[in-house]
């Protein structure tokens, strides 16, 4: 009997030269991606995991068994109810943004499993598709059992089917990054930038915080998913190396575009969780420190290693690292009824911690919380709309997120007029991405343009109920009803 090492490559790299049709017909450029290169240029493609299907199934079975055991022992409604209120919001935010994005990644992986240019790439992408299907099912299953006791968790499945502003932004990203990308862009954008560059932040950093909080279910779920990500993310680097050899500018463009777009998503999802929704005693590092360790250092090293430069907008990224998620969180807090999870005001101790971890930027942000705290002190507990915005919010025409980039002193929003249309962007990188692929993005309407076109209501409550699909039971409130120990109210 042949040993594994003797047959593995025959099974993984079963490529041949087609004779009835050309390579270009089997792998048309529209489906396989550009640059279109002869097979020989891809023939050396390899990745370090070199898994077989039998090994894949055995490993996944073991992981499912172990996950199920934790679900049975720590995933019941009474376990979830015991978690700190703000942490439950971190779970709801993560759980809603993750599973259907993962489902879109099934499509991206399956496209690579058909149109990737070597058999080994296609095999690994097929495992990737199976992984992503698993990552769709796990949070849907785990949260489904909890919906009866907490209706906000229904948004685990509902978010991407709604016109909620977070869903519009998330779909704008996910449709392009995961569902629509050709295998080359998918490998660079999803496997290299998004997964190798960023997902450690969520799956390693947030896992550590879940452990600190005592949320065994989320810790296990994230850990189980992370080990899959680490494997299929390996598709990215060998594709990128080939791309760099043949079209360095395009490789640099894809990395820069997707680093910025991924950053904005993670700043919201993970930034909120790490710096605001994790109770203070459980925090180990700030979001910025996690990003510096898990993203910046590693990503820049990887870029250099494949022969690319750091993104041209690095100074803007460094400003954003100190400000962006704080500005989005403060904005979201004052429009919390527009999301499906509750938010908290950072109290004096939290603000001291934030000042310590963001010495260069917190002084500009603190007055906003001073103002919000003072407003709560004059407002009855539970009267959320007494401490809430009502004006229509501005959204970026590229990322579809709130115009929160730059600093409170100088917002970096920038406008553009083109072909009789006006556009606004939260930042120069978003504007730059839009300009590179204008035909792709120009027709997409942000919420403001939908309101002006009469497609969405301008009234806040009508917007929340009829357009975002929220109700009083599900829309976000202050997690403590504004009833904080530090909020002394004058009778």
């Amino acid at each position, binding site marked *: 009997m042949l040993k594994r090492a003797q047959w593995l490559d025959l099974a993984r790299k079963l490529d041949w030269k087609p004779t009835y049709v050309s390579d270009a017909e089997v792998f048309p450029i529209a489906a396989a991606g550009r640059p279109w290169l002869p097979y020989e240029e891809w023939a050396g493609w390899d990745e370090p995991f070199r898994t077989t299907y039998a090994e894949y199934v055995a490993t996944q079975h073991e992981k499912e068994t172990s996950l199920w055991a934790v679900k049975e022992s720590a995933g019941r409604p009474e376990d979830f109810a015991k978690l700190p209120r703000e942490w439950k919001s971190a779970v709801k935010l993560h759980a809603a943004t993750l599973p259907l994005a993962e489902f879109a990644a099934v499509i991206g992986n399956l496209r690579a499993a058909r149109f990737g240019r070597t058999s080994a790439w296609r095999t690994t992408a097929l495992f990737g598709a199976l992984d992503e299907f698993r990552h769709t099912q796990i949070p849907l299953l785990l949260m489904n059992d909890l919906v009866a006791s907490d209706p906000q968790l229904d948004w685990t499945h509902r978010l991407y089917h709604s016109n909620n502003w977070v869903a519009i932004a998330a779909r704008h990203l996910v449709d392009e990054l995961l569902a629509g990308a050709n295998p080359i862009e998918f490998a660079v954008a999803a496997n290299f930038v998004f997964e190798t560059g960023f997902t450690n932040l969520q799956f390693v950093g947030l896992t550590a915080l879940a452990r600190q909080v005592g949320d065994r279910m989320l810790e296990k779920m994230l850990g189980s998913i992370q080990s899959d990500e680490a494997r299929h993310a390996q598709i990215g680097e060998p594709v990128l190396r080939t791309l760099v050899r043949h079209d360095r500018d395009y490789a640099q463009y894809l990395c820069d575009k997707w680093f910025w777009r991924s950053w904005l998503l993670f700043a919201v999802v993970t930034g909120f969780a790490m710096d605001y929704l994790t109770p203070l005693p459980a925090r180990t590092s700030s979001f910025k420190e996690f990003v510096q360790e898990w993203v910046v250092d590693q990503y820049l090293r990887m870029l250099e290693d494949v022969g690319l430069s750091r993104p041209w907008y690095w100074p803007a990224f460094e400003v954003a690292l100190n400000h962006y998620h*704080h*500005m*989005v969180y*403060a*904005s979201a807090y*004052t429009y919390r009824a527009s999301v499906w999870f509750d938010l908290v005001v950072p109290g004096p101790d939290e603000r001291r911690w934030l000042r310590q971890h963001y010495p260069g930027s917190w002084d*500009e*942000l603190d*007055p*906003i919380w001073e*103002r*919000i705290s003072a*407003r709560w002190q004059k407002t009855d507990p539970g009267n959320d709309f007494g*401490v*809430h*915005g*009502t*004006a*229509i*919010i*501005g959204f970026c025409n590229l990322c579809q997120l*709130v*115009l*929160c980039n730059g600093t*409170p*002193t*100088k*917002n970096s*929003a920038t*406008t553009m007029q083109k072909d009789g249309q*006006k556009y*606004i962007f939260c930042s120069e990188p978003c504007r730059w991405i839009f300009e590179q692929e204008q035909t792709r993005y120009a027709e997409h309407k942000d919420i*403001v343009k939908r309101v*002006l076109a009469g497609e969405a209501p301008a009234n806040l409550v009508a917007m929340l109920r009829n357009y975002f699909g929220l109700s009083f039971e599900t829309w976000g409130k202050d997690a403590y009803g504004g009833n904080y120990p530090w909020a002394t109210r004058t009778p």
Partner: protein
Amino acid sequence: MIPLYGFLQGDSMGLLIMAREDDTLGRLAEKLQSAADVRVAPLKRPRVMVAGRLLDLEMTVAAAGLTALDKFEVGGTR
């Protein structure tokens, strides 16, 4: 009404402000400050900037050349 993007110094976000053509820029600044009041304390002496130019608060929205979906900024001292 003319929808304009307003950015108030000290705020975390940009807001859409509905202006009238004959609103003065002083009134426009008031509308933005009122919309952002939950997050930002009012300015003592607001200044309005359009396309990098500091404009007279008595000037109207129309005279300032502001049309739908243009951007203005309000700064000053607190």
